């Protein structure tokens, strides 16, 4: 398992994706939840794909007291409120597929 990014070496990096129609308050909504749970944002980028806003945040959960499952639930209900789809996944799901 050594070649996997273990949580100790790399912190606990997650990738949060937001997909949906653009509107006021999306970034504030997402970052508000992250800040409240001591999750540090490392990078944000966004683009428009097929008329939808696609926003990707890379964040570090190492100091957070909640687990990924709880965070996913919180983000998901915020997404419903904002009319967009918000998901959070462990970074390895992407790194393992796209990087050797």
């Amino acid at each position, binding site marked *: 398992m050594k070649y*996997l990014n273990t949580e100790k070496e790399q912190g606990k990096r997650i990738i949060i*994706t937001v997909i949906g129609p653009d509107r006021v308050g999306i970034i504030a909504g997402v970052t508000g939840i992250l800040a409240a749970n001591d999750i540090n944002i490392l990078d944000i980028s*966004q683009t428009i794909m097929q008329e939808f806003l696609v926003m*990707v945040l890379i964040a570090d959960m190492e100091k957070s007291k909640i687990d990924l499952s709880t965070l996913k639930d919180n983000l998901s209900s915020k997404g419903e409120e904002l009319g967009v789809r918000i998901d959070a996944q*462990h970074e390895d*799901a*992407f790194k*393992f*597929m796209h990087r050797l």
Partner: protein
Amino acid sequence: MLTIQEIMETITMVQEEHLDIRTITMGINLRDCADADPRAACRKIYDKITRLAGNLVPVGEKIAREYGIPIVNKRISVTPISIVAESSQADDYLIFAETLDRAADAVGVNFIGGFSALVHKGITGGDAKLLRSIPAALAGTERVCASVNVATTKAGINMDAVALMGRIIKDVASRTADRDGLGCAKLVVFANVPEDNPFMAGAFHGVGEPESVLNVGVSGPGVVKRAVEKVKGSDFGTLAETVKKTAFKITRMGELVGRTAAERLGVPFGIVDISLAPTPAVGDSVAEILEAMGLERCGTHGTTAALALLNDAVKKGGAMASSYVGGLSGAFIPVSEDAGMIRAVEEGALHLDKLEAMTCVCSVGLDMIAVPGDTGAETIAAIIADEVAIGMINQKTTAVRIIPAPGKHVGDYVEFGGLLGRAPVMPVHRFSAADFVKRGGRIPAPIHSLSN
């Protein structure tokens, strides 16, 4: 740093193209559960399965959430029960099947494989009892899957066992007639069976395997289809390269999930099975990949060549992505579980003979095929004999999972629902092979020089 395109590619694969981990399957050795008293043996079996696999389902669900990729099935494979039960005084092994069913229910898995026997050269006392118990076991349990290996390249074909399997399959169908012969969907007849296959119904924990192990089966026909559609009109080199790259990405997911699950469950990681496993969902079809390559319908001329390219490119890409590849590893072509295959049969493009030809170049074999209910046991045995002969000569795994649907005729449908899907009843040849099948004995192992 990952790019936004890469992240979106992964998200699209899961959300729109049906990428999933088809199964994480825990293999469990049950040889130490043998006991002269069958009830004591069953108690040990139940205790061992529930102890080792107790966390399988919650761990699988947690990983699926963390990585954002569905793990569709969590399953268990065990040592072939013919080996475990042989030293018991039981004459009927139904009690062992019922124990497996209860254990599977207790830990929350939907299938448990290993009500199995390896009889490619001959049948022991325990094997014979297991084979006799298969019809009652499949009719009387919900989750138990059975498999029988009747041929290998090194041993030849045990035609006595093939003939017997023809009769057993008929018996299983009639005992589950009220469910369109569903029991037959849980019974696979193999040549050169792999010992580490995570896919049902043919999974069991082979005798060369460790105490327990975690194997993973990936999926992703929808992802491959979308990738193939993007290179419409390009040459075969580009096509093969595209499939390879896509298979690589799919397999990496399997490797990640498999290793993580093994670590959390405290068992060794076994293999990733890089099979393309279709589901009845539209867009998740192997037949549609072949059609995206330029065939008007799966089953027409050119299908075998297209499948050969697909299967080989999947293996090349998958082998690069995982440190251990095993199991069946190829493209599955089950009829009832693949919307494109069903359509091809309905439109008269795909017949049993072409499916048999396709199995020469891909994994497994005649899979989930419904034939008329009045198909004789000898005819089914002859279909099995043809298929295992392909495996024996070509040094590959082949298998038959066939449903002689009680009371059904060509043009009718069998409906199993869920991942098992629905299948149109396909015609078989009307000329008899009974005198051939009835000869008995073994077909000798083939020579592997002088190969033409």
